């Protein structure tokens, strides 16, 4: 597998403009002769599909929900970064680059990160032009707030529904292009496989979730924007339908999978409450701007939280990290929460929770100010827990949230399969080993509005506008997908899909979650094949393949998670260092901080499929630091 990053040979701040000037173009009259498939209608997919369609390409857009607007991006709450420096607090493209690299613990490509920071300001302009109603100050200017892990205020927001508004903006452009006939929208339509012809991605196989029809679609390029794989843990903050299927199928067709073990565990979710818990709800981390995190200082505390005096409260983040306090990066916050709970200081059911307390903020700023900032989040919390944050500290606990890993892509966002691109959370590109808050949406929209529309032209311009819709590889793909569906329906065992997924999640959370060790990962690698066997022998998928069948959909996704989880554990094992969200028990400083190994691990690990039942091959893309030398992350001083 050749891993050519295609990073342009130019100074960082001129890289993207130089690159753009040298890309080949497809002329406006020729664009409509190219057909592009975009899988996913989240921020990445909707922005990419609408932008390419507006340029004149013919686009087929796919999502498994009943409407493009329901993609998981809709749930993003807190905000989106943009290096506008409206606050005059020293922000700049360089500083956003710096924060992203440092936050990612120096495991991302400098060139990509710089471009992301550079494009960030255009995204805000684009969204405002679409009518996204960002929060404004009294004078009518855009408002900003600060978000986890940084010292400037560069986050733009719409109350607690920034993702919803940005996605509705992108989907409005998609709707317009659908009406204009440039986009053909395929809703309730799930990708089951990717078709590679003569070494190039030329189409996909889908199942119509309503009729069950399995069909092929051909194109000149395929763009995956299918989101992240946090649902490998079963319980995560992701929507129920989020899955690894599209990227996993791509991997099995030759696309390298990069850094699968880099997954972010978000520190502020509502703790799980019972046996049927189906997902975890995130409380936006903007809450950490005003809320103070603490646990009782002594084990066995039984008093009501409000009557625990100051001296008996352990504000562990403020004590351990005086400079950043409650705003330390997500991984640091999550690890510390696990740590205090492991010490027996946790609160709530099973002691798996810590307090996030607004008492002092309400005292200092007044009820109204706090209400203006967080009312809908408070409301959400009381709805779920039946407790009010106005009267009692919230309880929070870390939850799997975002996956930095994903398909390996070069500077043009193309995977190792020519013609197959990956954008948004589905690629690995910009966040290294850990993502900063409010940067995921930024990356999705940078990829979709500004990068892929240009880079895809360079690829397409090198290829004919030939039609492969009659190619036997497509019929073969349909047949194979049908066989897999039939196989799932034929198992007819005794276990519900849900039960096995829950067990997979628990295993991954225990052994490949916040902290990993060789022993634990070896154990997981022993257990996973057994669980997979159990699934293929004893699951029961009711109903038929010729109808809307949600158990079948879930079973297909779980089958892929069961394979994927093994590569995830292998990757965690192979990365013999701690970095960002990946903490190996064996590699910590005496204070329990991640200990990176820049000598031998300053790289991206990329896994290559080697056929059923064979161990995948591991390749490395070396990372180079020209602008910013890696430093030990230190949020203490």
């Amino acid at each position: 597998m050749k891993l050519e990053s295609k990073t342009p040979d130019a100074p960082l701040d001129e890289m993207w403009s130089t690159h753009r000037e040298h890309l080949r173009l497809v002329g406006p009259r020729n664009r409509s002769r190219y057909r592009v498939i975009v899988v996913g209608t989240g921020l990445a997919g909707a922005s990419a599909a609408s932008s390419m369609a507006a340029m004149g390409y013919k686009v087929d857009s796919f999502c498994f929900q009943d409407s493009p607007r329901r993609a998981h991006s809709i749930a993003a709450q807190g905000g989106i970064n943009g290096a506008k420096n409206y606050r005059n607090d020293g922000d700049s493209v360089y500083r956003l680059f710096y924060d992203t690299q440092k936050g990612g613990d120096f495991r991302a490509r400098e060139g990509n990160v710089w471009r992301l920071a550079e494009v960030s300001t255009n995204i805000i302009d684009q969204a405002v032009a679409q009518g996204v109603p960002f929060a404004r100050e009294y004078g009518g200017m855009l408002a900003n707030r600060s978000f986890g892990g940084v010292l400037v205020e560069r986050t733009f927001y719409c109350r607690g529904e920034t993702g919803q508004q940005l996605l509705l903006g992108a989907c409005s452009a998609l709707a317009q292009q659908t009406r204009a006939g440039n986009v053909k929208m395929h809703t309730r339509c799930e990708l089951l496989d990717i078709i590679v012809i003569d070494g190039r991605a030329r189409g996909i196989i889908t199942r119509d979730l309503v009729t069950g029809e399995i069909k092929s679609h051909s194109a000149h390029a395929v763009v995956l924007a299918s989101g992240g794989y946090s649902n490998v843990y079963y319980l995560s903050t992701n929507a129920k339908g989020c899955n690894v299927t599209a990227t996993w199928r791509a991997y099995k067709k030759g696309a390298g999978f990069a850094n699968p073990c880099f997954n972010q565990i978000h520190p502020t979710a509502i703790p799980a409450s019972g046996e049927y818990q189906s997902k975890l709800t995130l409380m936006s981390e903007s809450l950490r701007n005003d809320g103070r995190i603490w646990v009782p200082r002594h084990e066995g505390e039984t008093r009501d939280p409000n009557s625990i005096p100051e001296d008996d409260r352990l504000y562990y983040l403020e004590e351990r990290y005086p400079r950043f306090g409650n705003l330390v990066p997500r991984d640091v916050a999550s690890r510390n929460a696990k740590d205090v709970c492991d010490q027996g200081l946790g609160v709530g059911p099973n002691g798996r929770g810590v307090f996030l307390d607004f008492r002092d903020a309400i005292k200092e700023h007044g009820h109204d100010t706090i209400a203006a900032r967080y009312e809908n989040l408070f409301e959400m919390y009381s709805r779920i827990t039946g407790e009010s944050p106005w009267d009692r500290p919230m309880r929070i606990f870390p939850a799997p949230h975002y996956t930095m890993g994903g398909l390996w892509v070069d500077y043009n966002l193309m995977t190792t399969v020519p013609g197959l691109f990956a954008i948004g959370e589905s690629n690995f590109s910009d966040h290294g080993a850990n993502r900063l808050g409010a940067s995921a949406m930024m990356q999705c929209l940078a990829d979709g509005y500004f990068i892929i529309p240009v880079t895809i032209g360079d690829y397409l311009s090198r290829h004919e506008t030939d039609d492969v819709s009659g190619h036997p590889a497509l019929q073969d793909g349909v047949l194979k997908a049908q066989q897999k569906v039939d196989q799932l329906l034929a198992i007819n065992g005794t276990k519900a899909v849900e039960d096995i997924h829950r067990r997979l999640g628990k295993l991954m959370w225990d052994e490949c979650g916040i902290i990993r060790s060789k022993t634990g990962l070896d154990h997981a690698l022993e257990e996973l094949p057994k669980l997979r066997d159990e699934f293929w022998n004893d699951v029961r998928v009711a109903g038929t393949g010729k109808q809307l069948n949600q158990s079948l959909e879930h079973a297909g996704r779980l089958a892929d998670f069961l394979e994927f989880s093994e590569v995830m554990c292998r990757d965690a094992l192979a990365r013999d260092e701690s970095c960002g969200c990946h903490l190996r028990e064996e590699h910590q400083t005496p204070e329990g901080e991640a200990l990176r190994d820049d000598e031998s691990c300053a790289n991206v690990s990329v896994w290559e499929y080697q056929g059923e039942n064979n161990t995948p091959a591991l390749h490395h893309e070396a990372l180079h630091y020209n602008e910013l030398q890696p430093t030990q992350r230190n949020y203490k001083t």
Partner: protein
Amino acid sequence: MKFNIKVWRQANSKDSGKFESYTVDNISGDTSFLEMLDALNIQLTKNGGDPVAFDSDCREGVCGMCSMVIDGQAHGPKPATTTCQLYMRHFQDGAEITVEPWRATAFPVVRDLVVDRSAFDRIMQAGGYVTVHSGPKPEPNSIPIEPEVAEEALDAASCIGCGACVAACPNASAMLYTSAKVSHLGLLPQGDPERKHRVLSMVEQMEGEGFGSCRNYGECEAQCPKEISIKFIGMLNREYLQANLLDQANPRGKMSPQ
């Protein structure tokens, strides 16, 4: 807690459908309504039955996917709450709970509790956008927007497109949904240039999809999980009247948006 669930079962859009009753037991009050249905489905699966099909995705009240009428009310008895945010602690132990799909001509049942809401998407496609290409745009602060206006636009833009307003309306009207988008964009300077085309085209599409007309029952607002205000229907009506009276000619007829 224990519940008797009376749920609508319908194999596909052609089937006539009927209610079936099931019992679910050992449910804690902290279980969400959808998790209770998950539990029912696991039970059905293990006993050789067919699980109940229902839509959901985000399970936190924002994607608009979940959609069921519970005891006669869209999204159930708790105001300003989507089905996925409803918890079993809101129900009496031992209660019989009736669960049905949205019922409206424009939303045909796909299976059990799942309906086809693509009509909503087509209304959006008819004009729910500002025409902009991707690329360099003016500096946003060069067009100041009063915070109250931005907030009001956001109130309207908070609609999650769930369709409860249609299910709640005795006339199955889609006015609240349509007006939310017309108002969101109409309130902002960015939406101004296309306002006439937008309202005319969206209303035309809405009527063509077979939604009923608005008779001011107010049930839409009452059952909307996002508390979208009925005042936006007033705004739509004003926009519509103005567009109709002041400008008979449709500029789109002559000019392509490209």
